[in-house]
């Protein structure tokens, strides 16, 4: 083990872990105030549940030898993973597994049944996340072998979570009383800030070393986040004569999503282009979403799906041989773009279908079910599911 690389990967792992509470506040700030605790808990519990699943079998299903489609059970309980680079990799990857299902929850806030969600977490990590991670990142995964580029998880994390979010939103149905405005905008901003901060670990850690690749990934990550935030802000100002803070924060996240698969493959100019695209496409998607019948409440698909797909394609466009070893469209080669498209389609299809089936089954199991009662939804899930109120400041505080 090189101590410098180890130092960076430990740091990066901590940074990625922090993204999940960041997401909890980002989402928590967007819902109405009677659901802020329940929304935060959807993310926070992923830290608790997925960590355990990952250690017990998740890592093995994802990175065990297995075949082109799925790992095997050789690393159950992290058996045989010595405290060295392998264990560090398992730890770093654990943080990715934690945040991915947390991303989904943006689509189901304010009405999904909490206990069912916990069961869903266990199954989804096992049946959806781990296999797709295997496809893309395991040396014998079929997408890896095909040459799909996904430096830090554009398909595995973002497209995957986004399309699962759509499946979940369809099955759980619309909210009865969606709030008009975000309930706590400072939470949205601090959440976005923690995501931005943590994303440096996410992307610049994904090269597994403290080297030039990491430095470039760090730079392009910041560049894309900034550009997308700025783009969104400008579009918002032009269209509405006001600049939404929630919009700028969302733009930043969209840019971070889009640069994720590309962070090891593009230069800083490519990053600006990717950020610009992310700002425009995610903005448009968020505008269109309310016109669609599916209540993807916090626009998971509009940001992580659209941003993720754009990023995966953009990786095929802007990748430069000097970085990723393969030429992209701007170097005149269309092949990589095609490979990227295969990765996108496969992830979209598998994740949507598998998630749909899992939730359909959970809906039918007595005692589970996807949706809270109308009464609980009206009262708000903070009290109904968690027995708590976010802020208590009346005379009885």
């Amino acid at each position, binding site marked *: 083990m090189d101590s410098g690389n180890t130092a960076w990967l430990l740091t990066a792992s901590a940074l990625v872990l922090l993204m999940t509470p960041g997401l909890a506040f980002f989402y928590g700030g*967007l819902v109405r105030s009677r659901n802020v605790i329940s929304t935060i808990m959807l993310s926070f519990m992923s830290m608790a549940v997925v960590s355990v699943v990952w250690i017990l079998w998740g890592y093995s299903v994802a990175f065990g030898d297995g075949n082109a489609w799925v790992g095997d059970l050789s690393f159950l309980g992290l058996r045989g993973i010595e405290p060295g680079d392998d264990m560090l990799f398992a730890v770093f990857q654990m943080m990715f597994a934690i945040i991915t299902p947390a991303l989904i929850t943006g689509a189901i806030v304010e009405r999904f049944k909490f206990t069912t969600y916990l069961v869903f977490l266990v199954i989804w990590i096992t049946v959806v996340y781990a296999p797709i991670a295997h496809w893309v990142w395991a040396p014998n995964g079929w997408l890896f072998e095909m040459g799909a580029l996904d430096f830090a998880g554009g398909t595995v994390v973002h497209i995957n979570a986004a399309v699962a979010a759509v499946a979940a939103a369809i099955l759980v149905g619309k909210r009865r009383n969606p709030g*008009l*405005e*975000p309930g706590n905008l400072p939470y949205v901003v601090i959440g976005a800030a923690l995501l931005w901060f943590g994303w440096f670990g996410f992307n610049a850690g994904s090269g597994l070393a403290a080297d030039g690749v990491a430095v470039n990934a760090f730079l392009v990550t910041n560049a894309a986040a900034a550009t997308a935030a700025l783009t*969104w802000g400008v579009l*918002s100002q032009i269209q*509405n004569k*006001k600049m*939404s*803070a*929630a*919009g*700028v*924060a*969302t733009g930043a996240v969209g840019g971070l999503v889009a640069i994720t698969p590309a962070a090891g493959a593009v230069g800083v100019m490519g990053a600006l282009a990717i950020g610009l695209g992310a700002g425009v496409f995610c*903005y448009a998607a*968020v*505008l269109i*979403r*309310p016109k669609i019948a599916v209540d993807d409440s*916090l*626009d998971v698909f*509009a*940001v992580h799906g659209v941003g993720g797909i754009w990023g995966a394609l953009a990786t095929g466009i802007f990748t430069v041989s000097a970085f990723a070893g393969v030429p992209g469209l701007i170097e005149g080669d269309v092949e990589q773009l095609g490979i990227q498209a295969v990765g996108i389609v496969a992830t979209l299809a598998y994740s949507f279908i598998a998630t749909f089936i899992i939730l359909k089954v959970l809906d039918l199991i007595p005692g589970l079910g996807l949706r809270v009662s109308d009464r609980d939804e009206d009262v708000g899930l903070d009290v109904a599911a968690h027995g708590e109120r976010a802020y208590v400041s009346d005379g009885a505080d």
Partner: protein
Amino acid sequence: MTMISIEAVVRPERIHHVTEALESVGCQGFYYSNVTGEGRQRGVEVFVGRGGAMASRHSVPKTIVRTVVVDDMQEAVITAIIEAARTGDKGEIGDGKIFVTPVTEVVRVRTGERGETAV
């Protein structure tokens, strides 16, 4: 002499003007609180959700202020509030309303005094 309660719904940004006006007209005490109001003012434009689009929010933040005074101060207080709460010279929709209601008894907790002297 009877006592009355004068309650005004005003714009939050005018509350300081109103409380100063109440003081200067000789109000012994009052209290105020933020509420959400709906009236002819058809709301404000706010961003919804992640800030992609704006929507009109019917309800708008208002502040209510209430003071209990003796009967013969009614007109002075009303005039003071109107002057302090009105936007510009002509006023604007949403400037608020004043409601006067009868009060049958006032008690000062500290001393137990009743009626006018307690106001």
